[in-house]
């Protein structure tokens, strides 16, 4: 499973410490996790041209994996890149500690992509373009049809937000502990949450498969 992959991008990071728990609905589609510096909660990064000095280094290091997080939600590299750009722009104006950047960005990308998926802020002719998005060729892909991918993402949009975020982060390679920290949940309940989300999505896949 991809979840076993060693992404581990924010070990020892407590995202909750940065502000209110990054939970369901914490962001608008263009917003990012709130920060708390010295006890002051800011609901969005400060406007203006001040850009953090390490933005380029973090971008070059983390951009592919942040696109990958968003692509799991949206199924399209182009749309995922749009989301990643949005998230990095916000990051550039934030003061998230550099060591916590990858985790912060992953959570922000999952939230933002899910919001895009739900609110229909998607590119025109999106479904038609799915066929043009090559996926990594492998045996598993051969048995996952484009229609199944479309249905799974439709079902993903209907899941409770927290379930959907947990699922996406886990399938993006974050450990149970990292997912737990990211969405303010006990590590013990991450498995249950992810399991329920997968069960719901699988049911959706099977329901249509059996009625086809």
């Amino acid at each position: 499973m991809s979840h076993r992959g060693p992404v581990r991008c924010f070990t020892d990071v407590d995202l909750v410490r940065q502000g209110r728990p990054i939970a369901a609905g914490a962001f608008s589609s263009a917003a990012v996790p709130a920060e708390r510096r010295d006890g002051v909660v800011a609901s969005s990064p400060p406007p203006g041209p001040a850009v953090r000095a390490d933005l380029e280094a973090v971008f070059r290091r983390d951009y592919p994996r942040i696109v990958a997080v968003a692509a799991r939600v949206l199924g399209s590299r182009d749309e995922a890149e749009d989301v990643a750009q949005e998230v990095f722009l916000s990051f550039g104006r934030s003061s998230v500690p550099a060591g916590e950047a990858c985790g912060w960005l992953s959570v922000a990308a999952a939230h933002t992509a899910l919001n895009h998926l739900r609110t229909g802020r998607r590119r025109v002719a999106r479904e038609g373009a799915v066929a043009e998005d090559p996926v990594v060729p492998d045996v598993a892909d051969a048995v996952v049809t484009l229609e199944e991918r479309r249905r799974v993402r439709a079902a993903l949009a209907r899941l409770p937000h927290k379930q959907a975020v947990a699922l996406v982060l886990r399938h993006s390679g974050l450990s149970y502990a990292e997912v737990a920290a990211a969405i303010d949940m006990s590590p013990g309940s991450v498995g249950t949450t992810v399991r329920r989300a997968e069960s719901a999505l699988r049911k959706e896949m099977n329901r249509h498969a059996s009625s086809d």
Partner: protein
Amino acid sequence: MRHPTEGVLRRLVDEPAGVADVDRAHVADCPVCLVGLATAREDAAAVDAALRADTDVDVATAWQRLSTAPAAVRRHPAPARARRGASLRRPAVAALAFAVVLTGAGVAAANDWLQIFRTEQIATVSLSPADLVAVPDLTAYGDLEVTGAGDVHEVADAAAAHEQTGLAIPEVGTLPRGLSGEPTYQAIGEVSATFTFSADRAAETAGDLPALPAGLDGAKVRLDAGPGVAEVWTHSTGAPALIVARAVAPTAYSSGVPFATVRDYLLSLPGLPSDLATQLRAFSDDGKTLPLPVPADQVTSSDTEVNGLPATVLSARDKTMAAVVWVDDGVLTAVAGALDTDEVVSIARELR
């Protein structure tokens, strides 16, 4: 005792170390939980496959877009150079090339080549798709030159394959049910890949580089592998059903600076997941173990023995194929096919 929750079963699928021993012991002996575990595993694999998408991105172009976006971010001009070699564009290929060059390869060419690695065994490095796209494309950090006897080509029979490669051609004892007849034979000559580190290239790619060790600019790492031969049995549909392959396993050499210097510096550059870097470092330290990158979401690996030698078994999570790989005195042999793991191991053990 009570059955563990569905969340515990789910964690057993992909993070078993996080599950309490008592729960693991229960599940191992509980038919009800084993069914639940199998269902959880199937659901996780199906969802993972359905959510997977192409994420092969061009970071330089993306950075340019960000740095020229309204309300952004211009610190200094971004390099726009197209830097990905076509042959390395696919992330999996890039990852493989990266791991292979890092861990080295062949016969000594010039006198100043120092052997740094000779394959004696194999271990898998689990990669997720996210890792594959994160692994740096080596052509972004220097020049990668591949030389050698090029394409795989078909040869007439086992005798011809032996003559061209010098390898003992394995004979299969008993073919699996449904297969019969003679295989086709394919051969490939020795292949050599030389990576020359370029500080300029790396700086274009990675921006501000960590301090460059003396002598690193222009240092070379060379990997030699092959020749090799494959015997292929096909189904009536034309799909390969069983492949038995043998090749001279990779050996690596360095020149200019110690190999560890090149390796550690590359590993310090942006883009490589830290756990993967750690695994690669560990694997190369003994100079004997070839890390075989496998996509952890699609393939599981386990250990076995083939005629007294340690061997690695790979199995597709959807059970559509399996393979076993081992190394004997610098020669790598693999048996793979649309079979289950017991069958490939059995064939491997009966090779003559």
